[in-house]
């Protein structure tokens, strides 16, 4: 199992803030799956963090990974 988290305006698309899914081999296959389930995600601007680290290209996933989908930050 992996844990998927959605933040900020992405929750307007997903209507949920977290999701438990069976493992995916890598982030690309996870993104494909999520875009089928939430089509508007394809148009959204976001970064992906795996286990609290932002990734710049696809990486492989392990069971237990936490994958966060994060729109541009707007704290402060």
């Amino acid at each position: 199992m992996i844990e998927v988290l959605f933040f900020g305006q992405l929750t307007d698309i997903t209507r949920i803030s977290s999701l438990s899914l069976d493992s995916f081999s890598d982030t690309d296959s996870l993104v494909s799956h999520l875009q089928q389930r939430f089509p508007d995600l394809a148009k959204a601007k976001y970064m992906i963090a795996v286990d609290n680290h932002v990734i710049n290209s696809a990486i492989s996933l392990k069971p237990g990974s936490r994958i966060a989908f994060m729109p541009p930050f707007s704290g402060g």
Partner: protein
Amino acid sequence: METRKVRNIFMQGPVEPGFIAESIAKHATNTAIGGHSIFLGQVRADEVNGKKVAAIEYTSHTEMALEKMHEIRQDIFAKYPLTCMHVHHSLGAVRAGEICLFVFTSSAHRKAAIDACEECVERIKAELPVWGKEIFEGEGYQWKVNQ
């Protein structure tokens, strides 16, 4: 002097002026300090298409934000001769006119505290996974966009 462990920066609701005063008062015992620099972020009642922002509701990827804040803290302590640095950020609703961010740096001579405070604020806004939802008076909302 300064422990470098990951510490919580988040608090529910606004940062109250009394909390800021207590934080300042605690530094009176550290007589090596010559200057403090403080930044306070306050929620603006911006008008958007005739609707007025009544509050901002903050959420965060807390665990990641605290790790990132720890990294920022270490970088800033490595770069500036600070005595101490404190950061507090609101989560949940903060109404217009209330304070949502409190950054507080201290040093023997003013320059370090001033520069470190500004750098810390910039990095917080750019790097911490925190989101603000601007809630309008009446109904509706929009997601805050940082400049």
